[in-house]
């Protein structure tokens, strides 16, 4: 098939990622571009994710496109036992692009094989969520003015968090330094550390927050989920170790920004919100520009 899908962040070369970020910047500056006039985009959410769906639908609407789809599989033919293949083949007839989220891993890669239109993965289980990575990179570039030589601190659940894994991969060509702060049970998996070794990327692992937070350009917070711990006592003991409080930001760089893929529970204390270093709400806004850029790029409307 000759169309371009975005299933994993590694489907895009570094040049393509940079191009998409440039398009996003242009779309933010010049919002009045009706690139999707007359186009129909299907948003197929086989599991609910209100935030991601609204972000995509906002991106589509801002470019003049129409949206069809479902936000809950219980209201679709999926609940009657239709295969994913059949659903995708049928929906391909009705639209120019499919945006899908599905609880099973690899589902969107399979969908891209059977679809006759491009597919954008909006999350397939614990596997990939590439537009999140692009909006994270867009936020880094926008706040730091560059992607090169950034010191990124990643905090919380580094074992299961797919957003941190993809970001580590996508940032590696830009000479970053990583500092990983997590409970030993939620460490960055060995395969990603080996990946960084193979690319010659510097990284340091810590079990608690340290004074070197002062060196951070980006602090990327993630949620530690209770269900990751078999021993709830251990969860209770450790959860407070990975909470970012406003008082900890005193000696940090003035340009430092705090990112979070959201939703946040308590890992960023509420007293951080008014601090200009808190960037997570603007980051969500950047998601709309990044998704506009990806949509127009895979459809060949922007090259």
């Amino acid at each position, binding site marked *: 098939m000759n169309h371009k899908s975005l299933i994993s962040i590694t489907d895009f070369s570094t040049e393509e990622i940079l191009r998409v970020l440039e398009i996003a910047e242009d779309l933010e500056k010049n919002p009045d571009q009706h690139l999707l006039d007359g186009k129909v985009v299907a948003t197929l959410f086989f599991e609910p994710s209100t935030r991601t769906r609204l972000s995509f639908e906002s991106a589509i609407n801002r470019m003049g496109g129409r949206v069809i789809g479902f936000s809950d599989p219980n209201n679709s033919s999926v609940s009657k036992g239709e*295969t*994913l*293949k059949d659903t995708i083949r049928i929906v391909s007839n009705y639209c120019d692009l499919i945006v899908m989220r*599905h*609880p*099973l*891993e*690899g*589902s969107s*890669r*399979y969908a891209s094989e059977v679809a006759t239109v491009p597919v954008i993965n909006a999350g*397939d*289980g*614990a*596997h990939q969520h590439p537009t999140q990575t692009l909006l994270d990179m867009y936020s880094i570039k926008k706040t730091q003015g560059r992607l090169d030589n950034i010191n990124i601190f990643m905090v919380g659940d580094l074992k299961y968090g797919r957003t941190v894994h993809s970001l580590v991969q996508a940032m590696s060509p830009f000479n970053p330094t990583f500092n990983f702060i997590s409970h030993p049970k939620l460490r960055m998996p060995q395969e990603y550390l080996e990946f960084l070794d193979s690319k010659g990327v510097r990284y340091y692992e810590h079990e608690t927050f340290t004074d070197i937070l002062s060196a951070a350009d980006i602090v990327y917070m993630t949620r530690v989920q209770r269900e990751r711990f078999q021993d709830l006592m251990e969860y209770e003991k450790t959860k407070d170790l990975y909470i970012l409080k406003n008082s900890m930001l005193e000696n940090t760089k003035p340009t430092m920004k705090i990112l979070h893929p959201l939703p946040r529970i308590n890992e960023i204390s509420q007293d951080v919100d008014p601090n200009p270093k808190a960037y997570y709400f603007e980051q969500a806004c950047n998601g709309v520009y990044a998704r506009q850029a990806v949509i127009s790029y895979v459809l060949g409307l922007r090259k």
Partner: protein
Amino acid sequence: MDKKELKVSALKNGTVIDHIPAKDLFQVIKILNLEKVDNPITFGTNLDSKKYGKKAIVKVSDRYFEDSEINKIALIAPEANLNIIKNYEVVEKKSVELPDQIKGICKCMNPKCITNAEPMLTKFDVVSKVPPALKCYYCGKVTDQEHFVII
């Protein structure tokens, strides 16, 4: 050796697959789809072997396998070897080697992988040949030898 026994084991033309671990014979039969083959086939199992203790052997008359077909058995019988027989003579000896990619044959061990929910072929990149390890093309999870389930 009496004449009757010789008749059963000698092959005029065809392929002898030797050094199959005895316990894996039926999986080899399944992978090569021998159930659907009309040619005369002889199986022997629980034969004494220096390598395995007990080995199995398969002889298929008038049939030569493509490498891509036969190499699939490397997944479970990496030390199997082939004797190509023409006119009662061994004209070629080959060992099996895992291909770089495998379609079908094995299940992905990830219960949350789409291949375990949809009626579709599995697809793997072979990330290690010895010991064999397969990375699912769809979900990215690696299935190791211990978790191979032949479809």
